[in-house]
């Protein structure tokens, strides 16, 4: 391989490695925009990955796998919703509980599926003439359909958040829920909606791992990607476009470690595997340091809403 083809293959790998993180980060982004902090993304992704895998193996169709993964992600997120929206629980601790529960649940459900193949995993399907564009084609348009779907989801979500009326309400939910309430919208119902939608996207991110990226089920196969997605939302300053850039950046670091080994770099594999985690800390620190420790997070993020406190 020439240096150029290696470079292109690393970039292409960055996109596939970044896609599960991207879906999960977009899910967390809408959840946080609605004012709910969900630190359970890791658990949600695992629940999605395992349910998607089991459904795909049982029905023989990966599409049913996706449906199951989104349902599982939404259902697990709903627990967080009930605790944090209706019961005003501590959102940090509830999210942690969700991660632990999701890890246990997926380990329990998936035990007998370890090592099984997916009957029809999502395969690479070059996207018509776009796939032949020099450089861009192989990097962006020689992937599976879920990657292409994420290309549509990012602009759609950006349009929704910044250009539509429901998007305006969503932003207000996270900034000032009392104002949304005063306009006559049901704050609780809307927050439930976005928490569940966020969970469904997290489940989809998990299913991408088990049905397209791997494609197989391994215990704890997310390996911290859910947490990286949470960090990514901060890095992205709650913007879908920046989340996309960030996801590919993280995917690139992930892919780089793998490719450095192929290139014969003699760094022990353990240190290469540390890179995404250290990179997360580094990036988060840079973002915070550049902004002098102040963020433009949604104003009501993490605070339970209580009508009587208005």
């Amino acid at each position, binding site marked *: 391989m020439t240096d150029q083809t290696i470079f292109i293959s690393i970039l292409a790998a960055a996109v596939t490695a970044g896609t599960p993180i991207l879906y999960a980060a977009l899910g967390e982004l809408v959840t946080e925009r609605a004012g709910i902090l969900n630190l359970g993304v890791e658990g949600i992704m695992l629940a999605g990955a395992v349910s998607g895998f089991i459904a795909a193996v049982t029905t023989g169709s990966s599409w049913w796998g996706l449906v199951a993964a989104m349902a599982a992600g939404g259902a697990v997120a709903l627990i967080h919703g009930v605790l944090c929206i209706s019961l005003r629980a*501590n959102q940090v*601790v509830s999210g942690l509980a969700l991660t*632990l529960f999701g890890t*246990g649940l997926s380990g*329990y459900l998936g035990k007998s599926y370890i090592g099984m193949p997916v009957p029809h995993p999502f395969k690479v399907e070059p996207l018509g003439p776009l796939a032949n564009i020099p450089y861009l084609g192989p990097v962006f348009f020689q992937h599976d359909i879920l990657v292409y779907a994420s290309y549509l989801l990012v602009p759609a979500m950006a349009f929704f958040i910044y250009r539509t009326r429901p998007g305006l309400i969503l932003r207000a939910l996270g900034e000032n829920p009392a104002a949304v309430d005063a306009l006559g919208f049901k704050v609780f119902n809307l927050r439930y909606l976005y928490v569940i939608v966020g969970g469904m996207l997290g489940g989809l991110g998990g299913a991408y791992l088990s049905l397209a990226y791997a494609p197989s089920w391994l215990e704890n196969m997310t390996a911290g990607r859910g947490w990286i997605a949470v960090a990514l939302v901060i890095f992205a300053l709650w913007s879908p476009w920046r989340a996309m850039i960030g996801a590919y950046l993280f995917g690139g670091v992930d892919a780089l470690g793998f490719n450095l080994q192929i290139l014969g770099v003699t760094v022990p594999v353990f240190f290469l595997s*540390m890179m995404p985690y*250290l990179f*997360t*800390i580094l990036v988060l620190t840079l973002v915070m340091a550049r902004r002098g420790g102040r963020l433009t997070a949604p104003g009501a993020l993490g605070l339970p809403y209580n009508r009587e406190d208005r």
Partner: protein
Amino acid sequence: MPVKLEKRLAPSTAMSLAVPAVAVVLALLFCAVFLSLTGRQPFELYAAMLEGALGSSYGLSETAVKAIPLMLCGLGISLAFRMQLWNIGAEGQLYLGAFAATWVPLTFPNLPAIVMLPAMVICGMATGGLWALGPAYLRVKWQVNEIITTLMLNYVGILWVNYFVYGPWRDPKGFNFPLTAEFPAAALLPTLGSSRIHIGLLFALILVVLFIIIFRNSRWGYEIKVIGASERAARYAGMDIKRNMYIVMLMSGAICGLAGMAEVSGIAGRLQPGLSPGYGYTAIIVAWLAKLNPLAIVFVSVLFGVLQVGGYIVQTYGVPASVAAMIQGAVLFFVLGGEILTQYRIVFPGLKGVSADD
């Protein structure tokens, strides 16, 4: 009938005791539904877990063995949680503590126990503490979210230990298994009789007493509580918040590091991968379930030790051990959901003067 929540003037003591107890029962029922949906006999399974963990002297000693790291990590975590510092990094701090403690006998194998063991404790605690100090620095300096940084460092810490046991520290006489050489006898913590219960239990109990004294009688304990309740109030009172963040994270990490030292020195007798089945994560639930109360952490740790051992036991029935983690997560859900009852009173406006509790 509409239900109203009325804020209590003071948190209800009765409820703060009843909620965790009821939560455990509800979590078991919740998981029972789930288990039977997946074709298991939940109550037989629970009985087997209890029997396995408490029905024999071996089971009892294993339960204590699993409870020790939970106590230590739970205590370490609770210290940070009291100040609203979310140290999620107990797992990594445990691994780093184990790593540093292992360095002592590997480098100086001929030290007498009286020097060796204290050196291992000091190295383990110092390294665990320093591992937590990094996130504290980033938090103080630039408000970097410590949840994410401490959690990311868990993965790094585990990989770090794996590098050493698969690489430079691998026992040349170990048939290529990823294990360090066995520790000399002087590097092993004394155990209770012939059981596997080691003196780490004593470490935990000493810490409990220390915690109680610190939080009842010391100015420092008072400062931590005030900062946790309201940073603004603490600042007006002239308390040094940054300094306390450093100290608390350092101590928190050090205690988790001690847990790692106790695991290699008291149980494994060497450093190996998979040293902890997630004690650092389970300890988060333990700390919260115990309401950060040091004495309660001891009891909850024993309860979770039962779950952990029970989880291993039911593997012989073909049930994955992760069933324990699932139940633990569910317990925390119900505790969290029930906490509203300690802060609020449920009122049925239809029935005048009757409330749902006390």
